[in-house]
């Protein structure tokens, strides 16, 4: 057993679900998983949250009643008395400590959160996909090299790695935030994909393809990779939730996106720290948004993982 085997065991357990032999039930694993998911309230709630979140994020420029960067209520902010604009007509949640409409900022903030979550996950997935496919397809010394590198990365706890990477850039911005959050997930995806690729290597349909003289490249990309992706998709959903929370944590540590014109929930939460005693809602509302969205992705990811677990087949 290698170092850090604990965390790896969990990744590997998920990878193994990629090679579950079909039973005689006449239904593929994916189909039976979907049948169970459709009736699972946990999955439905999570999926509902995600759909609402995505629709709001896309439509937010039109839904928001005001420009999120416009300090239209600034004359109602009295710093000395620690006073901020109260809820009023046209501003259902009032303003923030800069006199900007809070409701609009929350709505438009969903865009940045979606952007960070999705881009960070895709970037982590892309990195993991390249490394994992290389290791799983080529085996031998490439495999050893890649996996040792992955081991070293897994030896540093996640958020610590993200903070280290984010601190590498002199001026934090949206893209450094995305890179930092994504890098943490690369080794996880790489190990996961390698595991399910190895499971595919040993399977009969790959052997058959090889016997038929299919070119190695086609075997990897047409026969192994598509079949190995199931666990990776499940993991992506969970990673989206982690990415959103990690991004908020980095913003909290001052390593987030400082661009004031583009509100982001994590940054809003971080900048509300100073006024949390007098105006807790400035922190609680963005926090609630983060929690609900992260919960949505977690619920979907967990229920998909359960559904794909062959032990739960009925």
């Amino acid at each position, binding site marked *: 057993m290698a170092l850090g085997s604990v*965390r790896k065991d969990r990744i590997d357990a998920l990878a193994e679900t990629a090679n579950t032999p079909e039973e005689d039930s006449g239904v593929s694993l994916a189909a039976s998983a979907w049948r169970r998911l459709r009736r699972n309230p946990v999955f439905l709630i999570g999926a509902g949250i995600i759909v609402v979140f995505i629709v709001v994020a896309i439509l937010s420029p039109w839904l928001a009643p005001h420009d999120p960067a416009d300090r239209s209520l600034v004359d109602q902010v009295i710093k000395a008395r620690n006073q901020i604009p109260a809820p009023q007509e046209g501003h259902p949640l009032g303003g923030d400590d800069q006199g900007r409409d809070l409701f609009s900022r929350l709505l438009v903030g969903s865009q940045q959160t979606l952007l960070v979550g999705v881009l960070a996950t895709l970037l982590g997935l892309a990195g993991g996909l390249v490394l994992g496919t290389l290791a799983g397809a080529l085996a031998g010394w490439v495999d050893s090299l890649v996996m040792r590198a992955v081991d*070293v990365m897994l030896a*540093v706890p996640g*958020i610590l790695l993200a903070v*280290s990477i984010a601190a590498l850039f002199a001026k934090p911005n949206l893209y450094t935030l995305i890179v930092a959050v994504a890098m943490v997930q690369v080794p996880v995806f790489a190990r996961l994909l390698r595991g399910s690729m190895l499971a595919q290597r040993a399977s009969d349909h790959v052997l058959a393809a090889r016997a038929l003289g299919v070119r190695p490249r086609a075997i990897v990309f047409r026969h192994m990779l598509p079949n190995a992706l199931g666990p990776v998709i499940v993991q992506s959903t969970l990673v989206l939730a982690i990415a959103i929370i990690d991004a908020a944590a980095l913003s909290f540590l001052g390593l987030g996106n400082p661009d004031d014109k583009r509100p982001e929930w994590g940054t809003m939460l971080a900048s509300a720290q100073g006024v949390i005693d007098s105006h807790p809602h400035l922190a609680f509302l963005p926090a609630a948004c*983060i*929690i609900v969205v992260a*919960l949505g992705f977690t619920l979907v990811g967990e229920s998909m993982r359960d559904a794909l677990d062959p032990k739960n087949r009925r």
Partner: protein
Amino acid sequence: MLRYTVRRLLQLVAVMAVLSLLLFAWLRALPGGPVSALLGDRATEEARRNLRAQLGLDQPIIVQYLKFLGRALSGDFGTSTGVQTGDSAVEIFLQRFPATLELSVIALVIAVAVGIPLGYMAARKRDSLFDNMSVVSSLIGVAVPVFFLAYLLKFVFAEKLGWLPDSGRQAGDIDATRVTGFFILDGLLTREWDAALSAFTHLILPAVALATIPFAVVFRITRAAVLDVLNEDYVRTARSKGLTAPVIRGRHVLRNAMLPVVTTIGLQTGGLLAGAILTEKVFAYPGLGQALALSFEKRDFPVLQMLVLCAAMVYVLVNLAVDLSYAVIDPRVRTQ
């Protein structure tokens, strides 16, 4: 067993060597770097050059690394340039380590003491209201950002209700005698009860905040493991031969279900230091996490380097301890 342990320890050395090299190269690549951090942006070119020479930053990077490694092996990680300027990195570590250890142990105790019984009960009453509620709350526990939960606790229990202190390790007006650096233990040893109590009340909120994620994970793994074991033939056998419920629970169910739980606890222990970065910052708790957050802010390389390496080492060592503890729990591993 011995050979296995030795091999794992050798691997640990290899990983630490690679990690230290990466970290070293990486920190040197930081824009701004230590010179700008110390002198600010307006320093003259000459002042910069002098400081670089003084810090040995003008030598080739491999020479710098070997020098660093040599000093590190003899226990010298350099002097802090920002967190506690002038103190040696090792001193800062030794000073703050008991604080974080105390916090982590309490957090872990909370997570385990609540997570395992709840997980067991949820599994026994599967699909009941209690089960569903516990599962949902554990999922929420994972989705709540740790630092926000810390703020929430601080806001409610320290600021609104005023039940517990909001920051620090001990009330400032207590003149406690220091023996071990563990404030609760010190208070108990020297019979300064007020000091021990004050240290304990300062620990509650940060420990609860830090415990949420480990709790949620321990709960879910326990529940899943107990569910698996309850379906095993040997549990049915035990039941049909008329063993009492406590015996079935202790010897047949929990003991077999503990293997994945121990794994999880180990994994979470390793991650506690990472969680402590956020929690300690919120509660201004003078531990390693706070030092780490500060060292990033102030680009204090010696402290940063030492703390990241220590975090990784603890993480890997805990994993090793977990693997070795399998042998204690599961006799099958021992005979292999």
